[in-house]
């Protein structure tokens, strides 16, 4: 709260990185299994979707961002994997909550909604939430473009 205003840094890596990660994760899916097997489309869809999100999180900076970290953790939980993240320097969340910095009820309703949408939004102060949202939006749009391109490329002519 008291720190000087650093310029907001939401650099997102270029599309190559996203594409690469996504294709990698898809190929992992292949290798894991049974893509040919008669699974229901729903499961396949879910797998692909999860792969998309995970690859996006990894491409976007791995554990450097709060939302990507939360995403990866969530995904790992579903797979019941144990994931270790490097310790951050500061533990901000506890202090913030105690101070109950988030006031301003009108804003907070909307912030609640945002928190539900953006992964990892629950533990953030509102200003931090905004930053994460910005980065998340950028990465999401990049991922969408990548997938769109893939789909277009593979569509039957």
């Amino acid at each position: 709260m008291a720190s000087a205003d650093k310029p907001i840094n939401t650099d997102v890596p270029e599309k190559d990185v996203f594409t690469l990660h996504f294709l990698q994760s898809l190929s992992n899916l292949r290798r894991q299994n049974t893509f040919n097997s008669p699974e229901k489309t729903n499961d396949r869809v879910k797998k692909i979707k999860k792969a998309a999100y995970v690859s996006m999180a990894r491409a976007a900076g791995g554990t450097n961002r709060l939302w990507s970290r939360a995403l990866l953790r969530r995904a790992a939980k579903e797979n019941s994997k144990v994931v270790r993240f490097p310790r951050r320097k500061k533990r901000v969340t506890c202090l913030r909550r105690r101070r109950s910095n988030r006031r301003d009820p009108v804003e907070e309703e909307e912030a609640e909604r945002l928190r539900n949408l953006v992964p990892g939004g629950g533990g953030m102060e509102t200003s931090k939430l905004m930053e994460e949202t910005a980065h998340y939006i950028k990465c999401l749009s990049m991922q969408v473009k990548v997938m769109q391109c893939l789909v277009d490329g593979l569509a039957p002519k």
Partner: protein
Amino acid sequence: MLEGLVSPENLSLSSMDMSVLERLKWLRQQQQKQVVSQSSDNSPELLQILQFHESNNDELLQSTFSHFQMLGSGFGPNPNMGFGPSREAMDGCISRRSSLQMDPVDTMGFMLKNSEENRTISSKNKRKSEVKRREEEKTEKKIKVAAETESNMKGKSSMSNNTEASSDTSKETSKGASEIQKLDYIHVRSRRGQATDRHSLAERARREKISKKMKYLQDIVPGCKKVTGQAGMLDEIINYVQSLQTQVEFLSMKLAVLNSELELALHAYFTNLPVVNASKPSIMVDVPLFPLDQQGSLDLSVINLSQTTSIEAPSASWETQSRSLFNTSSLGFHY
């Protein structure tokens, strides 16, 4: 060092006056009873100011009254108001005249607050000093401008002052003029009509931070510029995020349908590529250099950026498609 802050002609009382005076008296009693060593350096200064104030109080009030009478007009509608609110009104008028005047009474209030609350806050204040300095600059300009413009609108302003003073007793809308810098702690200048206690300052700083970030978001999210106000913008942003997420889901469904082709392409693609790392510049370099022995003769020059390359062999077609896909995804995007 606080002597410079005190100049009797320029005193303007804030609406915190009543509370400040009460506090002054209270504190005087306190300090007469307690040992000086209880508090730190500020207490002797406090005492000085207290004494100064006691002596000058009457002069203060008289001077301000005279000021106000010079203004004339607007005090008419509220003849029965107590002393306090009238001082508020006067304060507003006077403060407009004297743009950046010192205000020892406010310092008093401020310092009193500081001493009452724990000095543990001082560290927080020091950290906040940067933020406050920026606010200072802003508010200084504002006050100057305000002083200039409003010297023309004396009558109206005093009217509005009175009505406001009568209706509102909370600190938030007090017509507090500029404040003195508290040299030990943070340097604060309040804006017009804003209180200066710590919490509201913190609130204000926080709100500014958030609004700055909202502006940044506004640039990113398309179609957000038309909507004004934070609520609308937040709605837009939320909708945008939701739409992006549904898009991802939709595209993944499509991909699942195109499953078989995808599989072929990926298989071919990834068996050929070397171990992949996420370094950006190397990606584009690796791809053209890689020998395509398994695919037969695929001329690398054939690989162009269009997605509709016509290739003979089906396996090769997948290969080039995926490769061209990759190329397009990296080069063909316009962003």
